[in-house]
């Protein structure tokens, strides 16, 4: 068991992969440390959201992911 981090949209290109598994638990500082400098820079922007267990976090810095959880990194959308 581990925490799965999904890189959505343009963050996938930046990370060089669609997903990564890291050992849990994982908090905000832990997340910034494992995603690489460029993605970590994006994560610190207000327009980039983080979802955990299928819910967008109102305060992403309160991230508290356990083994088995899926974290999704959500850049600004361009749908429709």
């Amino acid at each position: 068991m581990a925490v799965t981090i999904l890189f959505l949209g343009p963050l996938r290109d930046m990370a060089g992969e669609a997903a990564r598994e890291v050992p849990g638990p994982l908090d905000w500082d832990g997340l910034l440390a494992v995603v690489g400098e460029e993605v970590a820079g994006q994560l610190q922007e207000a327009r980039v959201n983080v979802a955990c267990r299928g819910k967008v976090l109102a305060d992403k810095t309160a991230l508290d992911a356990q083994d088995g959880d899926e974290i999704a990194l959500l850049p600004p959308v361009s749908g429709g």
Partner: protein
Amino acid sequence: MRDIRLLGHAFNPGMLIEPFVQSNPGLGGVCTFVGEVRSDPGVEALELTHYEPLTLPGMHELADRAFGRFDLLGLLMVHRIGQLHPGEPIVCVSAAAKHRRDAIDAVDFCMDHLKSAAWFWKREKHPDGWHWIEPRTEDHADLARWNN
């Protein structure tokens, strides 16, 4: 009648709209918007990715808000995902209501929210490769119209 779908394959809007209209007896008007992949020079294909645990629940929440805000009989909201080619429909929103203003405004509302607040990411294939599409400033301005 509510019909919310994500489709991974090409679709014909008319084939969805006709049964939708039939399934809302007593309507006074139906407004429909269909968005297609524009044939812009150099664009060979468009790819729409999404985050499945958020996308469909988000579209259902948007439908709830539309039903709460407008006097609707029915709402159809269909969005493509995957790879599309110029001329293919991306999105189809259709609202059936007793009065035209509710039908037109509901479509306008849903489209503005799908454009800026739904979990889709678009990239275009140009001769030199794939390019991600940034959200447009107008889309955010359009969305802000409903914040009252």
